[in-house]
């Protein structure tokens, strides 16, 4: 398929979907507030921006998201690397990780509130949990998968201390895996950010619940798309950085 054909088909698919949605919403089959047509979303955006809500909510959510992402990623990557490097540490975390990992980030909400109150810290904490586990396991796997022969090569050329091997072979060798974990965490973070705000912490999630209570469903949809947009932008930027770091890969 030619790239232009692909582009045209993708755009057509989107337009057809929006038209169908618009037609269905206007047909009277459903109450308009149960499914507002997409044409109501741009006005909703303009009014939310004019009233100052959109900027404040997006900014708050971005802050929770960023803190949670950095916290979860730094801890996850660091601990994952350490565990992969030391078999004894790995053995001692095996059962613990197996018990803690399946607990969904949202199940931590009660404790987040008990420990931190209805605060930004609580939201960032919840977001960081999901991101932590993703990075923990991918970093561990990435370090274990580093080519042992290259470690031997580095040793043969005089790099025999642990820090030297870490710097010259293990970390660069694990970088592709670690970066793909960070990217997965970037997506996971947006999934929890809304839920983390549903219980009253200022942000997109809180605004959505408010709007839903007033049956301002076009506002709810506006914020749903805002999240998709923010995720798209952050993923795009990340992939650009990733490609630059991994220029050595074919």
């Amino acid at each position, binding site marked *: 398929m030619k790239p232009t054909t692909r582009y045209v088909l993708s755009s057509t698919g989107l337009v057809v979907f929006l038209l169908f949605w618009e037609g269905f919403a206007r047909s009277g089959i459903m109450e308009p507030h149960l499914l507002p047509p997409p044409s109501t979303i741009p006005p909703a955006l303009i009014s939310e921006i004019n009233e100052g809500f959109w900027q404040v909510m997006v900014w708050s959510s971005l802050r929770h998201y960023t803190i949670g992402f950095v916290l979860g990623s730094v801890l996850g990557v660091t601990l994952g690397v350490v565990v992969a490097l030391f078999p004894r540490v790995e053995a001692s975390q095996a059962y613990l990780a197996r018990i803690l990992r399946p607990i969904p980030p949202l199940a931590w909400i009660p404790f987040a509130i008990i420990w931190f109150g209805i605060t930004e810290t609580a939201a960032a904490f919840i977001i960081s949990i999901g991101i932590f586990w993703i990075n923990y396991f991918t970093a561990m796997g990435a370090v274990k998968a580093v080519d042992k*022969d*290259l470690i*031997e*090569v*580095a*040793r*043969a*050329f*005089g*790099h025999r201390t642990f820090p*030297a091997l870490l710097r*010259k*072979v293990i970390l*660069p*060798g694990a*970088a592709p895996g670690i970066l793909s974990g960070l990217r997965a965490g970037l997506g996971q973070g947006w999934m929890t950010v809304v839920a983390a705000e549903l219980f009253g912490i200022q942000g997109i999630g809180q605004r959505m619940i408010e709007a839903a209570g007033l049956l301002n469903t076009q506002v709810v949809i506006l914020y749903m798309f805002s999240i998709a947009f923010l995720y798209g932008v952050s993923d795009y930027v990340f992939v650009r950085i990733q490609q630059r770091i991994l*220029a*050595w*890969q*074919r």
Partner: protein
Amino acid sequence: MAAVIETKNLAVAFGEGDARNVVFHRLNVSVEEGEFVTLVGVSGAGKSTLLRVIADLIPSLEGSIEVNAVRVPSRRPIAMVFQADSLMPWRTISQNITLGLEGIDVADADMQQRVDHTLDLVGLSDFGNRWPYQLSGGERQRIGIARALAVEPDILLMDEPFGSLDAITRTGLQDELLRIWRETKKSILFVTHDIEEAVYLGDRVLLLGGTPAEIVREYRVDIPRNQRREGEAFLRKIEEVKAGLHEAIAVTANNANDG
């Protein structure tokens, strides 16, 4: 001539208890200054292990390894060329070549000069800024040789460096290696499973066999190198080494059966 490497009653073993596997018991190998020694042997006999013990990548149990090389802060006495694809994929070709120079006393300007010089030597002058994935298998192997030469070693240890290459590339690189050897006068210990390659390259061919392994035969190749690709004497020498290898395989198998 003086020996640059001499192992005396070298013993190496892996594992412990019942799983203990004694690779060598009393191994004596020497390489003279400027000599090209090739090492062939029963597969699993420990050819690669010997190189790794000499390179101090694996510890020996007993015995000694004497390396009579000049100790200079800006050089490493021994450098190793590995089997194909031992380049660090995240380093450019230049950065791969400087791997062994990081940590020894080489000024930045000198480092660049050594990169240029060794790239010239292996015939890949313009490749410094490329990534390894952009090179063919044969080119990567040349860079492996350049990386070893950059530390200006007296001794090159080569572990089946051409084993994974196609026949044409391999033949080309063998001749290239002989040219580099003549130009740089390195002492070389070259492991291969290809007897023709061993006889083509070596001044001396060592045959490793038995359990624990020892040098069971040694062949001097007194044929001028320009008469080595074909010709009666060359082919006879190959047959001679092959016969020795088959004998060694039979002996090793018998030993194994005896328990």
